[in-house]
């Protein structure tokens, strides 16, 4: 590889020398706004348009021209500029034309002006998400872009986040977008071992981000081929600019709290209802009183409700967040640099949860000579996450709500946390409190994940001529993630061993990538062409080691060297590679008619030998109506563009070896054996999505009001399905390309500058609708994890809640009733009810996918003050409380404390209620049903900021360049009818493609308030 690059460079060195013969006027064209280079600017001699050229990728041009002539600089989205030639150097600074959409968007392997764009791309500026105290960038972009639905799992720090661009396009393969940072597709694998996923994007410092561009339709994304179906998120990091070195210091401090609380029974209510449930469940008074006494730490004080513990209070802690960021950037015309260092220290509001991170980024570039530019973008970071057990563990803080309010936090018999010590045995309690007390974990166990991450990308760009250049990028993303945990002897009831248990693992993910491509920009009269073509190769290997052991001398010994019994050790390795060729050509005629075609050939190690390569083409057209003569005479519409695109993309995120027949090794009594674990499928290939998109960009009043509208239809076929096969074959599932689904939707983005001048006020609204529908699963029903209430069912959106329909409590006897819903064959269902769960037919009772999502952002500035707020809305989704069968079931499934709605339980014949009779261990209404389903709609004040920028006058006295102070709040207010903790959730123990909006003791999101200062020197 290296040799290849070297030869390439040498070869082009010779060619380039031949180019530089003319005596010429040279110069550079830059953007007045920020001094950045403008490539593709037409430079011609006034009066003789045949003498002309255009700027190269660095904004530079060379043109042979007699002195005294006037040069005209023209560029889409900018005002024309005329300048007289006076010497051999003529630089030009172009001013943006407010009348047109002039944003520059990053597309795969290049950039494009919004004006010339025919695909669907959403851009989020780095400045919008700076200093927002969320653990990762996805949370920061939530609500800011149409068609991008982002759902955090829960309020634990650094946990996985679900991102769906234009809906889920797969049932069993990945549904997360491809993330590309400065041209390098980064590692996004989850390496967590504790059953809850972590998010590798946490390692990216969001203050270093210049922009995030989201490629949504096939025209924009197909250049990423077999990985583009879920959309592509292009992250561009900040670069230095020529000029004085700027030093910027940012600091913020704040604290967070949970967004919500669930209401549970107090002592009196608990004792009363449990007695009632005990009697109804056929338990003698003695056994119930004995049970109550046990939960009350052996005291009779439960009878007088002396102890009334609110366990939810016990799991929160003071949760400060602090962030320090120092940036140095600047450079000369030749060399530019951006250096940034950040320290972030965040405590979660959940006891024991914290994240601290330091990171350093250096981006440098150097114009080595006229034809060669080299540079590197490097970042290193270290992130330590003090983690918690997954939502399905007795030891996760939120499961503390199952404990009885009559149980004291401190057991008066021992003076220790309830559950730590049973005085009669000298060991931890085994049946007190009712379940393991998660607080014991916070004092006696830890689970820490440390990520070291190097993200590096070096590039060289060779200019052959003003039109043609070659760029080579070589990048590596090395992620080392290690986990270290110890659970002490006091956790025996939960960990299963009484002398401590330790676990340690380390994974090294080495991801190598190179992109090599030619860029060609040329104008011919009224035509202009912008083309790119090249190849890319990527290989990722993950090597993992892990070890676990128990039997430690005491809790003072926590590392596995002290373990007397190593219970498990393992090393694994997995890899994939991708070899690709890609090309794209954009053609514009007279700035009115736009055409773009692209294609990519992807070869992947993941797929069957019969289908190793795939081709992913896309095309799009645009018509800039506002450039037509008939539009010139009106002033209302300043910009009008129609767009249409169609293309094919793929999805290959299904693990590395799904096409191979596999045997795996298993040990038996110390002897190794093997057995077949997977059947071969040499025909296996990527899932294919065909996406059509029709868009309209419109601007009014010289750009004061602008809008982008898109409608799309994404049809996915060859779904990779874990197809259920008869177990009599020895296998239960095989991976096959079967099935189809589709997403169709509408996206609207409207931006308005309501007020300009002394007071500015701008509003940005986005609104999107996506309708997902599984069109063919070959008759299969695929269930999600958890209670399997989330299903993939033909004719329904992915993940619908498919279960028995609850019909309330039988007024006669308090039994849970269900609608039979037997299909009567005439399109009707039997609406009579039954108390026999098995008699009721499961039906679709809800949908975890929202009807629409929306965002509203307002920014007001006045005399140094700036104020902005972002409202985010998710509407029409349902949430299933998987823990309802324990916490909202009238003790029918155990003595877990109950939610207060259980006070409405049926008591006497004739009672009309939706809550069946409380019967201890009675199983009445326990089974999954629509009883546990609720609306998940919410509106959230996602972000609100009030800032003040000190005046220039004061700054010059202080010898500062800039000074800003601000106060900010994230998730400050949430409006929802959901009775749970927070409506934005996906249980970290169960979430997946199918299992969505499944609540299972999911900790609520954090509400964070911060105060910050930015100083520029």
């Amino acid at each position, binding site marked *: 590889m290296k040799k290849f690059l070297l030869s390439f460079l040498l070869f082009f060195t010779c060619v380039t020398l031949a180019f530089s013969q003319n005596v010429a006027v040279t110069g550079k064209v830059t953007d007045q706004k920020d001094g950045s280079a403008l490539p593709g600017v037409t430079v011609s001699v006034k009066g003789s348009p045949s003498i002309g050229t255009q700027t190269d990728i660095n904004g530079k041009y060379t043109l042979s021209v007699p002195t005294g002539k006037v040069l005209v600089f023209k560029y889409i989205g900018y005002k024309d500029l005329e300048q007289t030639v006076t010497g051999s150097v003529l630089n030009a600074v172009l001013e943006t034309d407010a009348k047109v959409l002039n944003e520059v968007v990053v597309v795969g392997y290049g950039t494009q002006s919004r004006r010339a764009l025919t695909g669907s791309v959403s851009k989020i500026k780095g400045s919008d998400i700076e200093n927002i105290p969320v653990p990762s960038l996805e949370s920061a972009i939530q609500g800011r872009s149409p068609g991008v639905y982002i759902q955090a799992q829960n309020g634990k720090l650094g946990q996985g986040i679900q991102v769906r661009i234009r809906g889920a396009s797969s049932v069993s393969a990945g549904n997360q977008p491809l993330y590309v940072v400065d041209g390098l597709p980064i590692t996004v694998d989850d390496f967590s071992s504790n059953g809850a996923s972590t998010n590798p994007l946490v390692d990216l410092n969001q203050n270093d981000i210049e922009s995030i561009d989201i490629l949504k339709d096939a025209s924009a994304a197909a250049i990423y081929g077999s990985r583009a179906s879920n959309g592509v998120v292009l992250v561009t990091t900040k670069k230095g600019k020529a000029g004085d070195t700027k030093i910027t210091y940012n600091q913020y401090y704040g604290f967070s709290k949970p967004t919500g609380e669930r209401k549970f029974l107090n002592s009196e209510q608990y004792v009363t209802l449990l007695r009632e449930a005990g009697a109804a469940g056929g338990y003698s008074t003695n056994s119930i009183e004995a049970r109550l006494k046990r939960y009350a730490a052996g005291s009779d004080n439960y009878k007088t409700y002396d102890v009334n513990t609110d366990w939810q209070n016990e799991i929160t802690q003071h949760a400060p967040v602090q962030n320090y960021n120092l940036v140095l950037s600047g450079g000369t015309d030749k060399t530019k640099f951006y250096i940034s260092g950040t320290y972030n220290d965040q405590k979660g509001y959940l006891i024991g949860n914290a994240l601290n991170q330091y990171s350093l980024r250096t981006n440098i570039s150097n114009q080595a000579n006229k034809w060669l530019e080299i540079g590197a973008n490097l970042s290193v970071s270290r992130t330590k996450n003090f983690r918690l057990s997954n939502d399905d563990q007795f030891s996760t803080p939120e499961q503390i709500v199952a404990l009885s309010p009559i149980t004291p936090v401190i057991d008066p018999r021992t003076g220790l946390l309830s559950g730590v010590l049973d005085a009669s045995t000298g060991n931890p309690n085994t049946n007190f409190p009712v379940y393991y007390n998660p607080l014991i974990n916070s004092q006696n166990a830890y689970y820490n994940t440390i990520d070291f991450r190097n993200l590096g990308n070096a590039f060289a760009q060779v200019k052959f001529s003003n039109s043609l250049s070659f760029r080579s990028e070589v990048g590596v993303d090395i992620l080392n993630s290690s986990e270290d945990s110890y659970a002490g002897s006091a956790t025996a009831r939960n960990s299963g061993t009484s002398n401590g248990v330790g676990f340690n693992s380390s994974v090294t993910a080495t991801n190598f990538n190179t992109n090599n491509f030619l860029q060609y920009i040329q104008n011919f009269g009224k035509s202009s062409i912008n083309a790119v073509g090249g*190849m890319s190769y990527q290989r990722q290997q993950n090597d993992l080691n892990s070890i676990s052991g128990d039997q430690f001398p005491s809790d003072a010994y926590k590392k596995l060297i002290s373990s007397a019994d190593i219970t498990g050790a393992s090393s694994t390795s997995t890899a994939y590679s991708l070899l690709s060729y890609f090309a794209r050509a954009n053609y514009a005629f007279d700035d009115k008619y736009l055409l773009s075609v692209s294609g990519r050939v992807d070869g992947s190690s993941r797929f069957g030998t019969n289908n190793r390569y795939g081709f992913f083409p896309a095309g799009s057209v645009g018509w800039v109506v506002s450039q037509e003569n008939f539009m010139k005479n009106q002033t209302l519409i300043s910009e009008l563009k129609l767009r249409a695109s169609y293309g094919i993309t793929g999805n290959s995120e299904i693990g590395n070896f799904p096409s191979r027949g596999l045997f795996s090794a298993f040990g038996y009594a110390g002897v190794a054996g093997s057995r*077949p674990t997977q059947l071969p499928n040499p025909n296996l290939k990527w899932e294919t999505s065909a996406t059509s998109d029709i868009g309209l960009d419109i601007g009014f009043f010289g750009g004061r009001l602008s809008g982008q509208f898109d409608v799309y239809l994404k049809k996915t076929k060859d779904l990779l399905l874990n197809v259920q*096969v008869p177990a009599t074959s*020895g296998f239960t599932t095989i991976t096959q390309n079967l099935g189809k689904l589709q997403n169709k939707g509408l996206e609207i983005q409207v931006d308005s500058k309501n007020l300009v001048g002394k007071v500015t006020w701008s509003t940005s609204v986005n609104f999107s609708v996506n309708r997902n529908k599984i069109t063919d699963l070959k008759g299969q029903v695929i269930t999600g994890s958890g209670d399997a209430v989330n299903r993939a069912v033909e004719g329904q959106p992915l993940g619908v809640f498919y279960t028995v329909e609850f019909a309330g409590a039988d007024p006669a006897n308090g039994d849970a009733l269900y609608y039979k819903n037997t299909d009567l064959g005439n399109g009707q269902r039997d609406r009579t009810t039954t108390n026999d769960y098995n008699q009721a037919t499961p039906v679709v009772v809800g949908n975890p996918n929202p009807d629409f999502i929306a965002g509203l952002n307002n920014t007001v500035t006045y005399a140094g003050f700036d104020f902005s707020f972002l409202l985010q809305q998710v509407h029409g989704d349902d949430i299933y409380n998987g823990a309802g069968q324990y916490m909202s079931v009238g003790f029918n*499934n155990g003595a877990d404390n109950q939610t207060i709605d259980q006070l409405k339980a049926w008591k006497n014949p004739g009672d009309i209620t939706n809550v069946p009779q409380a019967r201890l261990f009675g199983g009445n209404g326990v089974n999954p049903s629509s009883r546990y389903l609720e609306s998940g709609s919410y509106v959230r004040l996602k972000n609100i900021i009030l800032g003040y920028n000190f005046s220039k006058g004061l700054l010059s006295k202080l010898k500062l360049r800039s000074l800003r102070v601000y106060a900010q709040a994230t998730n400050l207010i949430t409006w929802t009818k959901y009775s749970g903790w927070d409506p934005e959730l996906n249980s970290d123990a169960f979430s997946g493609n199918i299992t969505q909006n499944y609540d299972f003791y999911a900790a609520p999101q954090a509400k964070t308030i911060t105060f910050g200062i930015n100083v520029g020197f």
Partner: protein
Amino acid sequence: MKKTKYLILALSTFALLYNSGCQKQLDIKPQNAVESSVALKTSKDVEGVLIGAYTAAALRGLYGGRFQSTTDFLADDGDFAYFGTFSDYTELNNKAITINNGFVEGVWNTGYNAIGVCNTVLANLNLVDPVKKARVEGEAKFLRGMIYFDLARVFGKAWNDGAPASNLAVPIVLTPTTAIADIQNVKRNTVAEVYAQAIADLQVAETNLTTDKSTYASSGAASAILARIYLTQEKYDLAEAEATKIIGSGTYSLVEHFSDEFQVKEQATRVFNTSEDIFAIQISNQSGYNALNEVYASSAFAGREETYLFGQFFDRFEAGDDRVNEVTDDSFTSKFNNAFGNVVVIRLAEIYLIRAEARIFKSSPDLAGAAADINVVRKRALLDNTTAATAAELLDAVKYERHAELTFEGFQLFDLKRYKGTTYSVDGDGNHLDAFPWNSPKLIFPIPKRERDANPQLTQNEGYQ
């Protein structure tokens, strides 16, 4: 333009060169598992898959414990109550199994997975060294035969319930699936056919394997399952003969104290087999999972502490029976107090009781022999010799011993059916609610819904349609 030509030429050359290098890069071999094309090349490979068959049979869904526990939960009439959160167990205990019951599905899926591994071994016997061939075949057929027998008796009607020749059990599959095209929608075979297949397999195992004590399958283990089958089929002479082979071999002996049979907490577990064990699933903290510990043990012993014993359980024991003390720990059984202990599938005490029962009913009854066998078991339990004399009394004595001796070890459902008894669902205090006679359809597992969705050829059992 000339330059561009050169450029294109050069680029394509490099692209070609690079391409040919990278083509190979797309051939990445899996490291954590091996491809089937290289998995079965030598005798050692096939012997490895035989070990794999034990690991498959040892999974928690089958002999790792849930075969035993699901059937005991279904048969229980109030010896214990389940206060846990696995609705699968609650359904079984209430005799109200749903077609989605995960543990029932687990028995089916795990059983057929293990059968598939056995079939892989048997289809590749040609690779095995000639001197090892008989043993490898025998062990694979032991596992396959035992699993078919057990699947037939939980998914089909009992042998003594109607006509085994027409009652449906489970499909018989004797060849491995190696390609997608091999997958077939098989139909259920009859109870008689599946029993016949099991007997055929076990007879090969009995012949091919030695009578030496082994961690793996042995001739004695095959004889033991044959004895179980013949007892179920009421072929008492054959059952007695098989039992006598085992007892007469002298390979096995009862441990001195009843409690010695059951591993205590944190006892060293690797290859821990008592003198009494005939076949046990080998579990260690390195491999395997003891699902009986999970469901029965108290949390002090790493169990889920969800299965509480009622007074009825204790009341069933005769005064002075050592077993009641030895197997209980407060309100829990202490049989499975080692989370990494082996799961014993066959032990000698059962064989004495099989022979006792066979001797009572065989063509020329041997009541004295039956009493002698019963007394062997009673003696170890520190009880006096049985006073039973008549066939009926002796049968009651066998029933008592089987309960006292084998409780929680996966025998109750099959004993209930053989003895044509009645069981009951119970309330939270152990009081009887509804009665379920031995031949109630509720005491037969449903064919799992998942399996019937994947294979429409499978008919459902009565009461689950």
